[in-house]
């Protein structure tokens, strides 16, 4: 597999780019020569069997992991390892990430959890931030639980709060690690609707990693399947698939 050569000065149109990523953890092969690229407006679901390193692979895609891997992961056309820490943090301020276990901050209530990224990054006043968060809370129908701590929430509720927290910053890139895990039917439809709504916006990217076939069907994004440490991509990702 050879990567298509591009002029160094040519600005990459791909915001997320994985080139021949191979990762081993304790002699177990997690993935081998995984390459794909996502440009603005593209959304991808990767079907991945449970227990085979889905979350680790997602952390590799986001550049969050310290696990050693071969190949390169590029964000906005540059290797994530080459970014200075403060620059990658600024780039992440426009990235949403929904974790498998929701990962809500345990000593903050729901309101503060949703307000957290805005309070840190935004130049807005506290009153404006509170207004935005209240709007999001109304939109996601979580008014009744806004003062509760994460430990008091059900799995579905904490997942909805995690999605709300990821989308409150109006991200360009949205990473979803098992977004449907533990959701009841009603919440499932609710989350899918909001994710579809996000995908309809211009200039956004979604990368979903899931084991759920029903989620991939409901979202209707192109589906890639991970099988025997290899990723088989759908046809219209052919530009990368050929490589």
């Amino acid at each position: 597999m050879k990567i298509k050569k591009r002029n160094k000065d040519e600005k990459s149109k791909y915001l997320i780019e994985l080139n021949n990523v191979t990762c081993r953890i304790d002699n177990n092969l997690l993935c081998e020569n995984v390459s794909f690229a996502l440009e603005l407006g593209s959304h991808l679901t990767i079907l991945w069997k449970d227990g085979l390193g889905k979350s680790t692979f997602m952390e590799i895609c986001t550049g969050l992991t310290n696990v050693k891997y071969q190949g390169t992961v590029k964000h906005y056309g540059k290797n994530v390892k080459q970014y200075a820490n403060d620059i990658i943090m600024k780039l992440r301020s426009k990235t949403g990430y929904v974790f498998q276990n929701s990962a809500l901050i345990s000593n903050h209530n729901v309101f503060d959890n949703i307000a957290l990224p805005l309070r840190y990054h935004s130049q807005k006043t506290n009153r404006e931030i509170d207004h935005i968060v209240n709007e999001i809370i109304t939109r996601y129908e979580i008014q009744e639980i806004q003062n509760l701590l994460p430990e008091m929430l059900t799995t579905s509720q904490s997942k909805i709060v995690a999605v709300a927290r990821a989308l409150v910053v109006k991200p360009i890139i949205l990473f979803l690690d098992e977004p449907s895990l533990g959701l009841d039917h009603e919440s499932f439809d609710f989350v899918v609707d909001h994710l579809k709504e996000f995908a309809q916006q211009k200039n956004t990217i979604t990368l979903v990693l899931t084991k759920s076939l029903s989620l991939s069907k409901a979202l209707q994004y192109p589906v890639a399947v991970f099988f025997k440490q290899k990723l088989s991509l759908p046809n219209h990702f052919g530009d990368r698939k050929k490589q």
Partner: protein
Amino acid sequence: MIRFYEITENAGNVMINLYRNVIHMIYLWSDTIVSLLTVLNPFYKGNKSFRRQVSFQILFTGVEAFWLIGVIALLCGGTVIIQAINNMPNFGVGEYFGKLFKIFVVREIGPIVTFLLVMGRSGTALTAYLGNMRVNKEITALEAMGIQPVDYLVMPTFVGMVLSMICLNFYFAIIAIVGGLAVAEIIIHIPYMIYLQKAFASISLFDVYFILGKSVISGMVISIVSCFFGLSVKNIREVSMVVIKSFVVCGAIRVVIKVIVIAAFFRVLFPEARAFFG
């Protein structure tokens, strides 16, 4: 059978880990200072959670420990005063009551007891809290949102801990003097106002700076060491271990700092000892 090379290998590993930990703690401390200076910049408009986080830390470390520190200060002050008033005149040094009280309680016992209580109560809790945050991927979630854990967790803790330590140390000194004398008056019926005057008259501005310095160092050591060990957790089994480790390391670092400071500034800190050492 234990082989010699295994002993040397283990000892070597321990030394390498110790060296790495110390270097990483210094990095964490410097990152925290940089983060603090950034937040204090009047043109910086990010990190609006700073005040909220600091006040939370002050509430937990300072305000909630007031009763505990107060009782301990009362007991320490009372015991030292009763013993001093009963025994010092026997040695003909009764008039040095104020100075002894100042050196023993205000300068030494106060800061060390406050340090131990805060470390045991708040430092270990902080380590366990950050360790659990790491295990539950909350720290990763912060990083995924572009929030530096140092900015959001370590630096407010550092500020809150230092401010709390300053308040608690002065609080301890005042309670130990005023309350201790009151306890002594109840038990052995001393002339309260005279002894109170003696105790306060012996305290100078230098002592205030001395307590201030000790409080700042204690606060820095507790917050940085606790955060360092909390953030270094890799799995749930390690949480209980790092809690103990952070407590021990905190104490050790404080002792090392104290020995270094005493060795370097002995004559300045203890002008009374000049008579003995020339």
